[in-house]
C-alpha cells in the first residue's frame, strides 16, 4: 500500500510544481483542489485494513471541503473580479518553478535529518509535506493576486495536513475534526474577506492594499 500512497504524494508534489508554474488562475485553483482531493483519499489508503465510518467521514469532509467547496468559492470571487491570470507576480513563474523544484529537493534532503518510525520510513509523507509548505510560502510571497495567495495558503495547509497523516492513529477524532472545522471555517472567512476586498477596492490586486504603512 505504501507504493500507492507514495504515488499519490508524488502526484501532489507534482501538482505543487504545476501550481507554481501556471500563470492562469483557473489552473492554479484546479491544481489546488485536485491536491485537496488526493489528500482526502490518503487516510483511506493508509488505514485500509480497518476502515470505519469516522475515517470515511473525515475523508469525505476533506474532499468536499478542499476539493469542491473552497475552489467554487474562489472561482466565484475570480469571476466577480473578472481576472483569470496573474499579471505580474513578484517572483516570476520560471523562478518560482525553480524555487519549487529546489524546495522539493531540499525537502527530501531535510527529511533525512528527521528520524522516522520504521512504519513511516518508506513513505514520502515528510518530504511531501515540507515541499507543499515551501510551495505555499513561495506562492504567498511571490504572487500579487489575492486569489493566488489564498491558493498558496491552502497548499501550505495541505502540506500540514499531509504531515498530520503521520499522527492519524494517535490523534483522537475530536481533535482532528476540530482542526478540520477550523481550517475550513478559516478558508471561508478568507473567502468572505476576499469578497469584501473585491467590493471595497473592486480589484483583487494586493498592490492596491498598501495604504497601511509607517
Amino acid at each position, binding site marked *: 500500500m505504501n507504493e500507492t500512497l507514495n504515488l499519490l504524494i508524488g502526484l501532489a508534489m507534482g501538482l505543487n510544481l504545476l501550481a507554481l508554474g501556471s500563470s492562469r488562475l483557473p489552473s492554479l485553483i484546479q491544481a489546488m483542489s485536485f491536491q485537496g482531493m488526493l489528500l482526502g483519499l490518503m487516510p483511506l489508503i493508509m488505514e485500509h485494513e480497518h476502515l470505519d465510518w469516522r475515517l470515511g467521514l473525515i475523508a469525505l469532509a476533506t474532499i468536499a471541503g478542499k476539493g469542491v467547496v473552497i475552489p467554487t468559492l474562489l472561482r466565484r470571487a475570480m469571476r466577480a473580479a473578472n481576472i483569470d491570470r496573474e499579471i505580474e507576480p513578484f517572483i516570476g513563474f520560471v523562478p518560482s518553478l525553480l524555487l519549487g523544484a529546489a524546495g522539493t529537493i531540499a525537502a527530501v534532503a531535510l527529511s533525512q535529518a528527521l528520524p522516522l518510525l520504521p512504519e513511516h520510513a518508506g513513505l514520502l509523507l515528510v518530504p511531501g509535506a515540507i515541499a507543499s509548505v515551501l510551495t505555499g510560502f513561495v506562492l504567498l510571497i511571490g504572487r500579487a493576486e489575492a486569489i493566488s495567495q489564498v491558493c498558496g495558503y491552502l497548499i501550505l495547509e495541505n502540506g500540514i495536513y499531509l504531515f498530520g497523516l503521520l499522527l492519524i492513529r494517535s490523534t483522537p477524532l475530536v481533535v482532528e475534526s476540530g482542526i478540520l472545522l477550523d481550517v475550513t471555517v478559516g478558508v471561508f472567512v478568507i473567502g468572505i474577506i476576499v469578497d469584501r476586498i473585491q467590493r471595497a477596492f473592486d480589484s483583487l490586486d494586493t498592490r492596491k492594499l*498598501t495604504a497601511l504603512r509607517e
Partner: protein
Amino acid sequence: MSGPLLLLAFVALVTAILVGVRSSRWWLALTVTGAVAGLIASLTVLLGATDWEWRSELTLGGELIHLRLDGVSALFLALLSVVGGTGGVYAREYWSEQHYPASAPRGRAWWSALVLCMGLVLVSSNGLHFLIGWELFTVCAYFLITLDRRRREVRAAGWLYLAASHAGTVCLFAFFSTLAARTGSWELGPMREQAGLAPLFWLALTGFGVKAGVFPLHVWLPSAHASAPSHVSAILSGVAIKMGLYGIVRFSGWLPVPAAAGWVVIGLGATSALLGIAFALAQNDFKRLLAYCSVENVGVILIGVGAALLAEANGDAPWGRLALAGALLHVWNHGAFKALLFFSAGAVLHATGTREMSKLGGLWRTMPWTAGLFALGAVAVSGLPPLNGFVSEWLVYLGLFDAVTGRGPAAWAAMPAAIMLAMTGALAMASFAKAGAMIFLGAPRTKPAAHAHECGPGMRGPMLVLAGLCVLIGLSPVLFWPAVARAVASWRPAWAAAEAPAPLAMLGSVHVVLAVLMVAAAVWLWRKAHANSVRRGLTWDCGYARPTVRMQYTSASFAGIATGWFRWLLQPERTLRRPRGLFPTEAIRLERVPETVLEKLLGPVSVAVMQVSAAARRLQHGRLQSYVVYVVAGLMALGVLVLLGGAP
C-alpha cells in the same frame, strides 16, 4: 519628637495637594505648616543625638515601610523645608490666580506634591520606595516646569528634562535592582562590609549625576531652569538637583566605593565647577546664567565629597571631615542664595517680561529691594566674605590644603582642584558682577526695563528670609556647625566630632567685625560726600556730549575676554554685518552661545538613532508578501539559533 512632626508634615502636604486646586489661602497655610513641621523634625534630628527610625507593619508595593531620618537626610530635609515653604509663599503672588487663571491651581497642587515626594525620597530607607519617591518627584517637577504649557519653548525644555531624568532613572533602576539582587532585599542601610557591591557606585554616580547636573550630564538643566516659572527654578536648583547629590552622598556613605571613586568624583567636581561657570559667564539670559551657576556649585560640592572619599581611602584622614563638612554646608548655602537669586530673577521677569540682560538695566531705581537682595545674593554666590558662600568654600579649601600638606597621593588631586576652585571663584565673581550690573545698574536699555515695578511683599518676604539665612550662616557659622558635624558623623562615624574646627569661630567673629565696619564705612562715606555737597550730572565718560543708552557695555562684551579663553568649549556662533557704504544704515553683531554638549554631542547621536529608526520603519511598508517573508526569516533565524545552540 520627629515622628509626629513628620506625620503632621505628611498630612498637611497631602491635604494641601487636595485643597490646593480650590483655595490658595488654605493651600499656603497647609504647605507652610508642612514645611515648618519638616524643618523642626529635621532640626531635632540634627541637633539631637539619635536618628529617627520607623519600621511599620504596613506594606507598600509588597515591601514593609521603613523610614529613617539620620544626619545626612535631615540636612537635606531642612533645606527642602526652607525652600519649599518660602517658595510656596513666593508662588502665591508670583504665579497668582489673576495672572495665570488656568495653571495657578494646578501649580499649587504640583508644588505640594513635589515637596512631599522629595521628602519621601529623603526619609525612605527601602530601595523600592526610594525609587517610587524619586520617579514621582521627577514627574511633579516636570509638570511644574511645564506649568505654562502653551509655550512651545517651555514644552521642549520640559521634555528634555523628562527624557534626561528618565535616562538617569534607568541607571537607578539598574542600580537598585542589582543591589536588591545582590543583597536579596530592597532594604537600604549601611552595608560597607560587602565589598562586592563597590562597582555599583558607578551606576549610582551616573544615575544621580544626571539629576545633580554634573557637567557632561547637565544637558537638561539650563533650558529647564530658564523656562520654568521662577519659584520652580528656585526649588529645582535649590533642592531638586541636591537630591542627586543626596543620592551620591548617601550611597557613597552606605555602600563600599571603588578605589578610583574619590579621584573620579573630585575630577568631575572640578570640571563641572570650572566649565559650568565658564558657560554661566557667557550667557545673556540671566536665568540661564543662574542655571549654569548651579552646575558650578554642584561641582564645588562634589569637590568636597570627592576629597572626603579620598581621605577615607587614605585611612580616614581628618581633612576629609573638613572637606565633607564644607560640601554639606555648601548644600545649604547654595540652596539659600540660589533660591534667593532665582526669586529676585523672578521679580525682574515679572516686572519686565524679559530674561535677556541686554534688554534690561537701571532697574535699581524702580525695584531697589530686588536690586539690593540680588546684590547680596551675588556676593554670597561668588563666595566672598563675609557671607555664607565663603564659609563653605573656605572649609573645602582647608580640606584641600590639608590634603596637600598631608603629602599623600591625594595631594595630586587636591592641588589642581584647589587651583581650579580659585579660578572658578574669580569667574563666578565676574559672572555676577556682570549680571548685577547688566540688570540693575546703568540706564534702562528698553522701555519695559524703564517701566518696571517693585514686587509686592508676598514675593519680597521670602527673599528677605533667605537673605537673612545667607547673612546668618555667614556671620555665625558656628551656630550651624553642630548640624553639619552631625551629618558628617552619620556619613562616616569615624569623623564624629562635636567641637567645631577652631578657626570657624574666629572666622565668624572676623566676619561680624568686617560686616559692621563695611556698613559703617559705607554710611560714613555717604554722609561725608553729602556733607561736602553732591552734584548730580550726566555720566562724564570722558566728556561725551550725550551718552546714549546703547553706548553702555553689553553683557556679551563684558564677558568677551574671559569667554574668549573658553572658545574651544563654548564655540560661540557669531553673525556679523559690517557697516557698508558712505552712509552706513545698520551694522549688526549677534553672538549666541550654543548648548555645546547638547547640540554638538547629543544632537548627532540622536540624529543617527533616528536614522536607524527611519530605516527600520521602512520595513513596515504595507506589502503583505514581505510580511510573510519576515515570518519565514524569523523561522529560519530561530532555527539557526537552535541548531547553533548559541547564546543571543
